[in-house]
Each structure stands twice: as C-alpha cells, then as structure tokens.
C-alpha cells in the first residue's frame, strides 16, 4: 500500500511538473522576427552597426519582458548585399521559418525589391525604405522611421551653407560624384537644384558604378575644374577611395560633403587625421534631446565599449523601437492592425517627438548635418542642436 501511494505521488508530481513546464512553455512561446542583412560586400561597414542595433534592441526588449509578454527571437540571415539574396532570405523567413514580424531591411538597394515582397505577404516593414520613389508606389506596409532619405539630404548641405557660412565666404563651385544606384540617384536632383538656387556652379557631375575601382579619374576632374565643394553621394569604400585620391593629388576643396561614409566608425580608422572636418548628412544623432537616446548611449557603452551610439546603431534601434511601440500599442501580432496603428498615432522616438506617418509611411521631411571633429561625429546644423564649432574652410591634408 505504501509503495502504491509513493508511486501515485510520484506520478502526480511528474504530471504537474510536465504541465507547469508545458504551461510556462506556451506562455513564453517566442515571437519570431526575421530577415537578412549584408554581412559581407560593399555594405559591411555600415550594416555591422545596424546589426548591433538590432541585437541590442532584442536584448533590451527581452530584459523588459518582451513584446506582448513574449520573448523576441530573431533570425537574421547574412547576405552579400545583393537584391536577389535579400529577397530569397526574406521569402524563406516568411514562408519557411514562418516569422511573425520582419526586420525593416537594409540597404536601400535590397529594399527596392523587399518592399513589394512584404506588401504581398502583408508584413509591416519599418526601416529606411528605398528613398522617395519607392514610397510613391502605393505600398502600405512600409514605413521609414527614421528614413535615411537621400531625397532630403540637400536640406543639410543647404542648411549648412545658409546658416553657418557668411554669404561672402560661400564656395563658388561644386563637384558632384555620385554612386550609380538608387541612393545616389535619389539624392542628386535635389542637390543640383539646391546648388542652382544658391548660385553655386556645378562644374563636375559624374556618376560611377559600384564597386568603384579607381577614384583618381573622378577626383582628377574635380581638381582640374577647381571645384570648391567636393560632394560625394557614395557608400563607404568608394568614399574612402575618393578621399585618398584627393590627398594623393593634393586637392583640398573648401568643403567636403559625404552622404553617409563619415558617420561610420571605420572612417577615422581608415583615414586617420584626414577623416576630420568632413560634413555628412544624418537622420539621427546620439546627442539629440529626444526619448530613447540615453538608452542607446548606455547600450553602446555596455555592448560596444563606445562613449556614444554610432549613427547606424541608432538608426536601427529607432526602427525596432518604432516596431515595438506599434506592436505594444496595437496589442496584437496581426500585421495589418499594426500597420493601421502606425498610421493613426503619434510616436516619441529617438529622432523626434510626436512623429506621425503619412499615407506613404513617412514622417515630415527633416535632415541634420554632422561634422567629424577630433575623430567624433558632432552635430553642426540646425544650430539649435549643434554640439561643436563648425569648421570652414577645411584645413589642408595632414603630412
């Protein structure tokens, strides 16, 4: 009899263990988040920080109890930066891994094909988009928060000229070197218009295919025409090559403007002292007085051992933060409901307060100008958020 009771007791114990274990399993069933990101290729230097931002957000949100009370598990496939791979991986994540949510996609050259894909599968896509043309196709599931909108970067160059340099000291000519892809093509027309409006002559207007093998002919042209602004609508490696070629040819324009290269930590590593005093456009900065930035900076200190969040780290964190707020706000994983929630509410994000998304999925146009100073990326425009003195004209190359 005693033996029997022990057996029964053991049986009941076992069952309750299984049940309680099983129950907590069901409650803690993770939310699957999937997508792909370049791990190699021409986007390596920027996308490695995007990934850090993603990792940090996932860790952070899980520490705070997850999304809708469930932990988030991410499946991020490494691609080579090509469109076909991105499409193949996203399709796999959606149809094979059956993810609940997708990452917002980076870079723009992959997003051009991903935006119609997520539209077909009905998945909310919060990232950088693929510049203005992609947002004019009538896609409803894509949002950019913040957008890395090449069509808007003319605002920062124009702003720097208008507010920070006395009219009499303005550079008189500009050499425009543009990478032949959707990013460069989107930026160029507005910059050309902005220069025309200010009476700055466009003396060189050259496009080049990526990857760029040799920057010398391009820079040679700019130097030959004596262009006083060197404007590079480039990615990272090509921008570095252009800078090197400029130094080799001893071409020292008054102002160097980059689209994204100088806000990447590897910039100073590659160029050393010569990476300083370059103006770049940006859609976020770690010293902006908006909610979420202290978290980002703390995360950068803890995870990366850096004093502040690198810019691409902050971008991707903002994208995920927006998704987080939308999912929590909508209270569901139904992507259509999440989408509708995004369209009908205001959000306080690291790059701005009270952000709303229009029919296209975009907030109101904005852009910041930053300058590399003492090896750090500092805000210079708008003046109200500037963190350093604006340096102009650019000092000579180091010896």
């Amino acid at each position, binding site marked *: 009899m005693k033996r029997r009771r022990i057996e029964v007791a053991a049986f009941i114990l076992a069952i309750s263990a299984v049940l309680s274990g099983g129950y907590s399993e069901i409650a803690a069933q993770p939310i699957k988040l999937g997508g792909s990101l370049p791990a*190699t*290729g*021409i986007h*390596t230097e920027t996308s490695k920080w995007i990934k850090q931002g993603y990792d940090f957000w996932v860790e952070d949100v899980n520490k705070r109890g997850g999304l809708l009370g469930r932990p988030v598990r991410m499946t991020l496939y490494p691609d*080579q*930066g090509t469109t076909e791979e991105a499409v193949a991986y996203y399709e796999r994540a959606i149809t094979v891994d059956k993810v609940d949510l997708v990452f917002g996609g980076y870079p723009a050259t992959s997003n051009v094909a991903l935006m119609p894909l997520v539209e077909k599968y009905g998945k909310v896509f919060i990232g950088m988009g693929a510049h203005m043309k992609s947002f004019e196709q009538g896609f409803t599931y894509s949002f950019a928060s913040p957008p890395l909108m090449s069509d808007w970067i003319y605002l920062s160059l124009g702003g720097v000229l208008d507010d920070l340099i006395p009219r009499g000291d303005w550079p008189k000519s500009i050499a425009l070197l543009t990478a*032949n892809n959707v990013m460069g093509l989107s930026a160029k027309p507005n910059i050309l218009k902005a220069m025309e409006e200010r009476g700055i002559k466009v003396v060189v207007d*050259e*496009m*080049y*295919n990526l*990857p*760029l*093998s*040799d920057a*010398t*002919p*391009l820079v*040679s*042209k700019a130097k*030959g*025409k004596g262009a006083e602004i060197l404007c590079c609508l480039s990615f990272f*490696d090509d921008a*570095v*090559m252009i800078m*090197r070629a400029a*130094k*080799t*040819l*001893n071409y020292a324009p008054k102002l160097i403007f980059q689209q994204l290269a100088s806000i990447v930590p590897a910039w100073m590593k590659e160029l050393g002292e010569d990476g300083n005093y370059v103006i770049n456009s940006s859609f976020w900065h770690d010293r902006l007085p908006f909610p979420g930035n202290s978290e980002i900076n703390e995360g950068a200190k803890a995870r990366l051992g850096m004093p502040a969040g690198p810019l691409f780290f902050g971008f991707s964190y903002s994208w995920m933060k927006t998704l987080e707020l939308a999912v929590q706000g909508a209270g569901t994983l139904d992507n259509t409901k999440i989408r509708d929630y995004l369209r009908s509410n205001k959000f306080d994000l690291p790059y701005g307060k009270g952000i709303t998304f229009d029919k296209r999925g975009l907030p109101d146009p904005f852009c910041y100008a930053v300058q590399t100073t003492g090896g750090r990326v500092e805000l210079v425009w708008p003046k109200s958020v500037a963190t350093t003195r604006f340096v102009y004209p650019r000092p000579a190359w180091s010896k």
Partner: protein
Amino acid sequence: MSLSYIIESIISGLLLGGIYALLSVGFGLTWGTMKVLNISHAVFAVLGAFLAYWFFVKAGIDPILSLPFLVVLLFLAGAVVYRLVIRSVTKAKDVIMASMVATFGVAIVIENVMSFFWRPDPRILKPPYTASSIFVGEMAISKGPLIGFCMAILAIALLYWFLHHTYTGKGVQATWQNPMGAALVGINPEHVSLITFGLSIASAGAAGVAMALIYAFYPSLQSVWTMFVFMVTIVGGVGSVIGTALAGLLIGFIIGVCAAFLPFVWVNVLLFALLLIILLFRPQGLFGS
C-alpha cells in the same frame, strides 16, 4: 579644360594600359599555342592581388618584394590547373569551345572560393608610396600606377626574353608554329604546354599585383578584367607579345582620352562596344595577321 589635365589623364591611361598588356600577354599565349581559351586567366590575377594584399597586411611585406615569390606560387597553381583540367580539355574535338566552357567553370569556382573565405568586400593594397604622386608642374602622376607600370614592363620584357632567347622558350614557339615538327625534333609537347600554361598564370598573377597598386579589388572583379583581357588580346592579335603590349598601350590611351572628355560611366560602354565592332569586322585584330 586645361591641357595639363588632359595629359595627366592620358598618362594615367597609358600606365594602366601597360598593366593590361601584362594581364593579357599570358592569355594570348595559351590561346595561340594550345588553342586554349582560358576564361579563368583573370581570376588568377585577382588571386595574385589578394595574396600580395595578405602578405602586406599580415606580414608587412611590400608587394614589390613579395612579387617574385608570388610569381612562383602562381606558376605552380597554373601547373596544377593544367594537370587537373587543361590537359583533358586539349584532347577534345573542339578544344577552343571545350576549354572555354571548362575554364569558365574554373573561374567561377576560384572566384567563389575567394569570396567565401576572404569575403567580397573591396580591398585596397596601400603601401605608403601609393598615397603620394610625382608632380610635373601641375600634373600629378600617382606613384602606385607608376610602380605597377614598371612591374608590368619588366615582366613583359622577361617573358619576351624567355620566349626568344632561351631554349625552353624557343621550344614553346616551335611547338606553336609547327607542333608536328617540334615533336619530331624531340620537344615534349606536354612539357611545353605545362610550362606555357604555368607561365601564363604566373604573368596573370604578377599583373594582378600591379593592378592592386591602382585599383580596389574584390573577387567578382575578375569578370570585368576578363573583358579587358579579351579586348587587348583581340586588338593586339593572339599570341604576339609585342602586339599585345602595343594593344594594351593603345587601349590605355583610349581610356585616358575618354576619361578626360566623357562621363565616367560611358567609358566602359564605349570600350566594350568597340570590342564588339572589332570582333565583327576585324577579328584578327589591329596588329595581328
């Protein structure tokens, strides 16, 4: 546009052209002597560039110093590819087509192996002398291309000397001109083929190192270089070292002129269109017979 800028551009083009010449000489050699259309020729140039890069980055050895060693290494690589692939292919009914397709496969394999292990990120070989130029008045001649050009000319000269002034080299020429006769006088055709192919690949590797002093490189660049190799070889005439050298300089000159006047992106379109026209109307080349 200032004259000095145009001349600067032309000089730049000529320096590049010399290196293209070295890149193409080996290709023409195997095509002419063995009827092997080695599409994988340029991928070995990229391999040479990568090896020079690793020697420099990991061991601090300047490419000028590592060049002789790399040449030997690539000669051996060429010998291996010859044994594994080329030898079988030379027994086919249509050697040119079979070699073309087979070496296409080899090129894809090597390109993607490099991509897999070394990643497709662009690399720059930057020994200190590549950061400065020699100034002639207002014109700047970058030191990197200048040194690459010197390497190329030296290598082409060595190759020419080998072919015309050494016993083995003359054997290669004899086999090319009259395979039956050469075999009759005791020249081992397989021996000759192995050496020819090995030399061809070695010269490609050397050209790759020279290219790396000018260009950023990455595995898939090999398909672009392949187009240029075709262009120079066909213009110069298959198998002629001097013809190829002249063709390289000519193409470099054209690149220099175009870069000065045309939008950058159209230079390549023009070149490839030119190649198409030459193929259609004068496939034996400008200097060939």
